[in-house]
């Protein structure tokens, strides 16, 4: 099981107690995000819609590239996930 951090944009910090980084753990990126939402339930509806799907205009960056949660991407010790709004809408 990897132990790392999730870095959140300023607009989401009120949902995680006004911090920028949250320590998380998990075997996969999806597990790590589950851990984030378990620690801070108010952030879950900001990242997932009511169907449980990842919001389409939100990026989760892992090792400099966006990841798709349906892919079982391994989460290793020291990994960092960066949540950011996609450059969408023109």
């Amino acid at each position, binding site marked *: 099981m990897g132990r790392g951090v999730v870095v959140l944009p300023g*607009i989401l910090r009120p949902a995680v107690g006004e911090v920028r980084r949250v320590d998380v753990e998990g075997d996969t990126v999806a597990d790590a995000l589950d851990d984030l939402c378990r620690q801070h339930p108010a952030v879950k509806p900001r990242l997932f819609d009511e169907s449980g799907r990842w919001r389409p205009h*939100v990026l989760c960056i892992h090792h400099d590239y966006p990841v798709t949660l349906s892919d079982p991407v391994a989460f290793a010790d020291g990994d960092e996930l960066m949540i950011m709004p996609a450059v969408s809408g023109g």
Partner: protein
Amino acid sequence: MTTLAIGTDKGGWVYQREGTDWQIKEPFFPGWRVTAFGKAADGTYLAGTASGWFGPGLHVSNDLQDWQAIESGPQFDGTDAKLEQIWTFTTGPDGRVWCGVAQAGVFVSEDNGHTWQGLSGFNDHPSRPVWQPGAGGMCAHRIVLDGERVTVGASAVGVLRSDDGGQTFDLRTRGLDIAAAYPDHPGVGSCVHALVADPSNPDLLWQQNHQGVYRSQDAGDHWERIEEGLPATFGFPIVRDEASGALFVVPLSADVDRTPVDGRFMAYRSTDEGDSWHPSGAGWPTDPNFDLVLRGAMATDGDGGVVLGTTGGQLWATDDGGDHWERLPGTLPRINAVAVL
């Protein structure tokens, strides 16, 4: 009028009147679109937020500055409907809080806004498959309560009324122009922009509709046009000052234009329950002004105070029932919601 909550495309602001001066407090929800405000029976403030990236949210506060996100906000269960935006909060005399949302839905809270239950009589209405959005979305934006009677204005659906406390709803659109008719569901397709009632005579309703200004004297069973004196019949808000009974609208030239006629920005007032309309008092800009007021951006304090916010970020207010208007200090982002709290 002492405290105003202003929701904009880029956060919320509180204005407080101290003597004759308005104090602007530090903004809250920076970066979020703030779409609605309410106040629960126990004094808890409610706010709806939205983001194109991070979705809609509901928050509560005791002081309008420190806000707590609600985890169990309104959510559609078991349907394809999506929660896009919170449009309105209405607190009933029994303490229940009613919330109207897009995509057209109604939710009720019995714990001052902390948890919510969908109103299936509205949210699963038999005509829902043909409901369509207006330009502002498919939204339940006004909820009028009178005992067991619940009247909802929804765009671009119509007026729906329940006589059994919200268990079942029927369309009440007779007399309204229908923007798009559906043979299997007659009466669906009227684009209600705002709805207001006379609390002392709840059978008396008024609405600003996409296609004109209307009145009902029988709780929505029938509607009649009331447009004498208006320079244009399109607009978004309609409010009523409870103290004087005066009605206020802000006419816009047409739905393809949506600006004040000839750049003469002002509210119009009716002091005869909508029979006739006149420019509301003095104080309006004399230079051409093509601002507009959205449906949630006009509010009253019930005692002669009326305030409106524009898409250009200006606030205008009267405290004498519409005889004199002044522009409040500051220029904000596009204003979606104004509440007197």
